[in-house]
């Protein structure tokens, strides 16, 4: 079974803090994704990566950056967290041309 794990299930941070969200997949997938999920808005793509050290902006990249130094790990970084970034963050991975497998999500609250 494909396993996508995320470093934290729940996280509470203060405004202005730097926040790191980690995602690890164990199936040698090329592609990895970060989404945020908000009530009434569904899933929105923040960034994705199709190879190590490669990244592409999704629909809402503002305020976020990513890092992919190893194939199995994809990190989402909030350089200076704001209350508008309070959300559920979902990581996913896929083999090219195949379905995306999602992690359990990290619920981030910024106060």
């Amino acid at each position, binding site marked *: 079974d494909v396993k996508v794990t995320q470093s934290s*299930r729940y996280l509470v941070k203060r405004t202005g803090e730097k926040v790191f969200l980690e995602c690890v997949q164990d199936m040698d997938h090329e592609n990895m994704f970060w989404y945020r999920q908000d009530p009434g808005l569904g899933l929105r793509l923040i960034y994705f990566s199709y190879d190590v050290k490669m990244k592409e902006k999704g629909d809402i990249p503002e305020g976020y950056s990513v890092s992919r130094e190893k194939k199995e790990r994809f990190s989402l970084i909030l350089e200076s967290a704001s209350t508008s970034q309070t959300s559920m963050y979902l990581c996913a991975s896929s083999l090219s041309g195949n*379905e995306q497998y999602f992690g359990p999500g990290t619920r981030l609250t910024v106060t």
Partner: protein
Amino acid sequence: QKEVEQDPGPLSVPEGAIVSLNCTYSNSAFQYFMWYRQYSRKGPELLMYTYSSGNKEDGRFTAQVDKSSKYISLFIRDSQPSDSATYLCAMSPLLFNDYKLSFGAGTTVTVRA
């Protein structure tokens, strides 16, 4: 206007009822249509996908696509409490297009025992 519209519900039905979920969309380039199921405190998992117009059946689940009306549906027959989840529609111009999935907001369903 959102590219994909989905009634957020919530929907509450008794066990054994038929659950009907719908999405409408505006982009005529969409060819592949997917339904994801998301249990509480879990990530979404792919339930079914269909191509172009028509029906697809998988056990108690039936997905329908009407491209002329830009309307897709998911029916759950003989619903069970284990079907209680949020259901998200997603669509793409290409099958499993790696970065062009457009999601609906999700409909939360509760099946009462």
